[in-house]
């Protein structure tokens, strides 16, 4: 399904070539109409939407990376984070704009964690931003729970057979974040230097953190 345009489809079909349309399409018209009707009725304010767009824009994987880097360098913080993910993040000044709980799952030598939302697209948005399309599409949602090793291999991640893979299925109110393993060779690094190598995909659990990661991070941000 890779192609010049992907809009989160779960299916294969051809569609009309993208035109530089002057006029917004049917669903954008519907979105605008619903928003304006709710504003007219006094149920929401135009500012509520603008403010929330700012909030969405402010949440990127860099937020989660700071949490991970802090956990790697402060064992007391890590303990509190693993006991209550939301409270741990809030300690760092990260607000939870939604009504969700966060469970942080630590990768170790014995356990590799992977997160998914089989039903839809639940994701730890306050700390990672919005999920990538592949997280919302059928192949990942359907297969992550039944053949995680094969799915991980498609991301180039091979987990030793003696390491247990735990897949956590998110819900509307319970979200997960993977605390990846700190790579060797990063002893003495600052929190910011460590945060710079922690990628979104590592916090989903589909790839490990490596010291070569900053390049990947740049590519993904582009």
């Amino acid at each position: 399904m890779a192609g010049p345009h992907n809009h989160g489809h779960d299916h294969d079909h051809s569609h009309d070539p993208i035109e530089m349309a002057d006029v917004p399409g049917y669903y954008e018209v519907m979105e605008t109409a619903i928003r304006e009707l709710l504003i007219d009725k006094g149920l929401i304010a135009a500012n509520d939407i603008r403010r929330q767009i700012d909030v969405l824009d402010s949440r990127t994987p860099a937020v989660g990376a700071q949490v991970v880097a802090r956990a790697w360098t402060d064992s007391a913080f890590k303990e509190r984070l693993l006991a209550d993910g939301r409270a741990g993040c809030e300690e760092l000044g990260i607000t939870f704009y939604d009504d969700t709980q966060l469970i942080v799952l630590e990768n170790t030598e014995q356990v590799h964690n992977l997160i998914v939302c089989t039903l839809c697209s639940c994701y730890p948005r306050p700390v990672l931003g919005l999920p990538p399309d592949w997280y919302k599409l059928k192949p990942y949602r359907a297969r992550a729970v039944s053949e995680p090793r094969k799915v991980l291999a498609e991301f180039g991640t091979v987990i030793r057979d003696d390491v247990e893979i735990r897949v956590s299925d998110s819900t509307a109110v319970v979200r997960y974040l993977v605390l990846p393993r700190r790579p060797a060779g990063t002893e003495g690094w600052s929190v910011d230097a460590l945060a710079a190598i922690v990628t979104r995909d590592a916090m989903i659990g589909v790839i490990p953190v490596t010291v070569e990661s900053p390049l990947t991070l740049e590519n993904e941000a582009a």
Partner: protein
Amino acid sequence: MATEDFVSRLPNDIGGFEAGSVMRVEHVLEPWEKRCHALADVLDFKKIINTEEKRKGVEALGETLIGKLPYYERWIVAFANILFTKTIVSPTELAEKMAEVEARFAEQAAEAG
């Protein structure tokens, strides 16, 4: 597939099904998609439509429409249906507002063009 599977599994419930390879696709949200996401969050904060109601609203579109509509298109159609059910917005109101918005967009495009 045995009919029992259709009874026990709603369209969103695909965990464990066979599916193709994971293609690492992503796209930057269109402005209206981001507004739709912000609207979903605001509807949740204001206790008008919560996340679980939204998810069920998408599921209620049925497998065919879920398969045909992209992600945020599913959300906005689900919101319309839920707002009708809650009698917050009527189908006529939405139709009239959409006609008005469409005319306004066309006018703006004509002025810009």
